[in-house]
């Protein structure tokens, strides 16, 4: 790669984008005007919310006591509301001769329990609407003065005041909020007066004085708030800022016809991709920074106006360290989003088509950005390994000043982020090297023609598209079937039925159906080739030797992603179900052998055969393993099976048969089942088992360290032997020239 070309392309694209009014508007002008405008609108709305007077209709005001007086001269008593609130609560005088009013009071007097009934609510709603009031306060019976109430010594039921509001109307909600503050203050005075009349000390009704103190300093509160807002703003704007230039630089260039000019120049595709990527990153960072700056300044101004004068709600500016961390984090964030946006934009034929890709990209990114906003989200090894979310949580910790805890997970977060950046850059370069992406014709998709094409042009083995379609079908079917099957089964037999039905419908049927429909040679597509006895034995030995290592890996996964309370409960229910099995053979059949056969047919059979068309066996194995992991619904299981899938993939590719894979898979599953079922009399009775197993806390068995190391070394050795000396190649070589000629002849005959 010539960096002089990259620099040249980068400077041209930068200049080009700087001359584009639309880009400049989105990147620079919009953030500078958008937030002040939004702030202004917010201030006006809040002003409306605060300043708009509300009408309160008091029904039966004459029933209120003279002291403490709630209403004085047709206004709320100034003792219970400040001057502004007093002005904003306009009391509507009730008419003594109003028939409806009288009937309303009457209905309350006759049956106070009627309050809350549908008819009274309806009547009040109608009355409020016809009188154009926001709140109705009904005092159905006379409320005696504190002196009289005090004399009763609390013998009688306390009088009632009913407040009616309409939560569907904002003005009514505001009126209710204002009036409830007033009535609470009035009630407190009333009770104080009653106590005073009875010579009861005020402290008697308080019981215990509870003091709630916020020990956070002002800067800490401010940092905690900023730490939630700022990373989100940075992420969302770096994605948006990347997307529009990416569309213009790829889809826009295709549309204008300048892309072909560039492709015929001596600049390599990778140089073009990197040059454009650097431009998109620059714009992504600039957009995020300008938005951040504009939002922070406007937000501070608006917030200070909104909360001015209210104690405890003042907010300081974001700490300088927060800005610093955000700027540092912005580089990988923008890198990642820019690469993803550029790769997506390279696929689009036109700017219009490119814009359609923004929504799915947002839909994928948003959950990753929202996870860290959840109150329970915290940075640990598990969350640090989630792309984007881990970085956001790390940023949150750093902004809040929790350096010690955050730096513990600095390495995994950086590692994951850099791997994601690297993968996305590779994707961009791949897109720029792919003719089908760059010169995608405007193909009209017709279902009929497509089906006809599938039927008429089936090839020997499935294509990559067929394989991916099968993966997606398995995932979608698993999702719906797992929901339709309901909760935990109550017996082993029902568990067995559900498991087998689920495996057959969601994994076996799609794989077999697609192998028959989409390939000429379903047998070969499912990799049902024979394998020699030594290879079969080697697969079983490898499974046995790898098992201790996988148990260690399983423990590690459980530490990183511990089981939730629900899952632990499920585990104990599962143990009870297993206890009801007719024998270990039944458990092995349902949990080890059948899943091994079915999953291998699908994942190492049809799917891996299709993915091998990628011409890169490692890519094929990685993708098949990823989907194999995803097909297991629990995250811990997905991680473990994903790694097992890599070994199974290597075995399948190197031996060209799924039979050793089935043997490996079945052995692996069986050993896991047997280890969980192992009892002391089994282990103690076998000299071999007692040498390799231990029970540290007398709860279940695990492999001891010596067995783990020795068997692990043997397993890795076997795997390397398989990679280095693939039996499939040997078989091909041993076929010799005659076999090759026959194969060629076969192809020629087929073509003829």
């Amino acid at each position, binding site marked *: 790669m010539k960096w002089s*070309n990259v620099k040249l392309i980068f400077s041209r694209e930068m200049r080009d984008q700087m001359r584009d009014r639309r880009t400049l508007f989105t990147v620079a002008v919009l953030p500078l005007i958008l937030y002040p405008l939004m702030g202004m609108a917010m201030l006006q709305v809040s002003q409306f919310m605060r300043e708009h007077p509300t009408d309160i209709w008091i029904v039966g005001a004459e029933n209120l006591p003279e002291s403490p007086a709630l209403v004085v001269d047709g206004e709320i008593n100034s003792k219970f509301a400040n001057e502004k609130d007093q002005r904003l609560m306009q009391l509507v005088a009730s008419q003594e001769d109003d028939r409806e009013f009288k009937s309303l009071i009457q209905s309350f007097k006759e049956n106070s329990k009627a309050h809350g009934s549908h008819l009274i609510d309806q009547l009040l709603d109608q009355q409020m609407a016809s009188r154009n009031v926001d709140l109705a306060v009904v005092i159905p019976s006379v409320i005696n003065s504190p002196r009289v109430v005090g004399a009763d010594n609390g013998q009688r039921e306390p009088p009632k005041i009913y407040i009616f509001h309409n939560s569907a109307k904002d003005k009514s909600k505001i009126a209710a909020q204002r009036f409830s503050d007033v009535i609470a203050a009035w009630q407190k005075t009333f009770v104080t007066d009653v106590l005073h009349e009875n010579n009861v000390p005020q402290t008697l009704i308080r019981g215990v004085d509870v003091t709630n103190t916020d020990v956070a300093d002002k800067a800490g509160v401010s940092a905690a708030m900023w730490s939630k807002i700022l990373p989100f703003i940075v992420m969302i704007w770096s994605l948006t800022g990347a997307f529009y230039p990416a569309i213009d630089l790829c889809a826009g260039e295709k549309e204008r016809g300048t892309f072909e000019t560039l492709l015929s120049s001596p600049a390599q595709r990778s140089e073009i991709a990197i040059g454009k990527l650097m431009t998109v990153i620059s714009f992504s960072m600039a957009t995020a920074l300008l938005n951040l700056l504009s939002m922070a300044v406007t937000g501070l101004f608006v917030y200070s106006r909104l909360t001015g004068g209210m104690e405890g709600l003042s907010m300081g500016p974001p700490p300088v360290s927060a800005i610093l961390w955000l700027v540092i984090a912005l580089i990988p964030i923008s890198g990642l989003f820019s690469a993803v946006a550029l790769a997506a934009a390279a696929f689009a034929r036109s700017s219009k088509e490119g814009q359609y890709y923004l929504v799915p990209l947002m839909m994928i990114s948003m959950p990753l950005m929202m996870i860290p906003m959840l109150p329970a989200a915290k940075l640990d090894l598990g969350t640090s390994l989630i792309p984007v979310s881990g970085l956001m949580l790390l940023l949150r910790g750093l902004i809040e000043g929790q350096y010690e805890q955050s730096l513990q997970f600095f390495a995994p977060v950086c590692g994951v982020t850099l791997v994601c950046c690297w993968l996305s850059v590779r994707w961009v370069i791949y897109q720029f090297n792919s003719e089908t992406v760059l010169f995608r014709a405007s193909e009209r998709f017709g279902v009929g023609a497509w089906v006809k094409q599938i039927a008429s042009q089936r090839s020997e083995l499935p294509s990559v598209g067929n394989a991916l379609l099968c993966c997606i079908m398995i995932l979608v079917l698993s999702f719906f079937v797992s929901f339709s099957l309901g909760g935990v089964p109550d017996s082993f037999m029902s568990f067995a039925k559900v498991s087998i039905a689920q495996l057959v419908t969601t994994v076996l049927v799609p794989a077999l159906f697609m192998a028959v429909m989409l390939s000429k040679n379903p047998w070969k597509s499912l990799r049902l080739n024979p394998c020699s006895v030594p290879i079969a034995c080697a697969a079983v030995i490898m499974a046995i030797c790898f098992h201790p290592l996988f148990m260690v890996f399983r423990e590690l996964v459980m530490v990183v992603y511990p089981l939730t309370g629900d899952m632990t409960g499920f585990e104990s229910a599962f143990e009870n179900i297993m206890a009801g099995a007719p024998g270990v053979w039944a458990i092995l059949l349902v949990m080890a052998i059948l899943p091994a056969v079915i999953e291998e047919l699908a994942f190492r059979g049809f799917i891996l055969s299709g993915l091998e068309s990628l011409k890169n066996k490692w890519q094929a194995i990685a993708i098949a393993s990823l989907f194999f992991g995803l097909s297991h619904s629990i995250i811990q299981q997905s991680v473990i099976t994903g790694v097992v899938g890599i070994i199974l993939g290597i075995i399948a590719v190197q031996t060209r048969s799924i039979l050793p894979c089935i043997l490996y898979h079945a052995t692996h599953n069986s050993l896991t089942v047997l280890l969980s079922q192992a009892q002391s009399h089994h282990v103690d009775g076998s000299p071999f088992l007692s040498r390799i197993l231990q029970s540290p806390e007398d709860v279940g068995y695990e492999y001891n360290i010596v067995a783990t190391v020795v068997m692990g070394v043997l397993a890795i050795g076997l795997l390397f032997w398989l990679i280095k000396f693939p039996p499939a190649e040997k078989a091909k070589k041993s076929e010799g020239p005659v076999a090759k000629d026959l194969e060629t002849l076969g192809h020629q005959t087929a073509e003829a």
Partner: protein
Amino acid sequence: MIHVRKLRKSYQDLQSGAFTALDGISFDAMPGQVYGLLGPNGAGKTTALRILSTVLRPTSGTAIINGFDVNESPEKIRHQIGFVSTNTAIYDRMTAWELVQYFGRLYGMDDDNLQIRMEHLFERFQMNDIRNVLGSKMSTGMKQKVSIARAIIHDPPVLIFDEATSGLDILVAREVLRTVEQLADQGKCVIFSSHIMTEVRRLCHRIAIMSHGRILAEGSIEDISQEFRENDIEELFYQIISKHEQEQQRSVLSG
């Protein structure tokens, strides 16, 4: 200079399945020659030229350009060619001067040589008035002039013109044709695709008539005319293409 052998290119199409755009074409073009590729729309001309300019990779077959194979040394070939087509637009937000300079630098020219060459080309194509005009403000003729200047800034031995006069007014089209003639006179090997027969008769030393990804007739215009006993090139083109179409229909009907 250009040796094309059994060049084949096929695509996958969602609607029609596998589609062969080029079906094993072969031809040779020499320095100082203008080699014409003729054919109706969809004949495979643009695909062939895109492969020669290394924008696309062939499915099979090869093309050797100035000693370099398109499959093995596409980067080296890009230094040997200049590519102008109806699709090779110019950047809207770049001036004529900036655009030619940009490509000169991509071709690895040093600043002094680039400056001299640019002054020469801007003078030759009378583009000094539009030096600082942005692409979006240029007329179609101006754009094509800039496009040609861009393609020959590094003085390549091979030039590829893909329907370079389509959509141009007669004055600009004539200027483009004159430029092609001059380039051939300078010893450049020019591949010129068109479906305007008068242009082909005026410019091309040899032609290949293409349809459905195949070459149906190849040689000098005189030789092909004699073979088909037809002097009018437009009529000649029509006869060859329609005869091929009929043969195709017959083979489809006979299964």
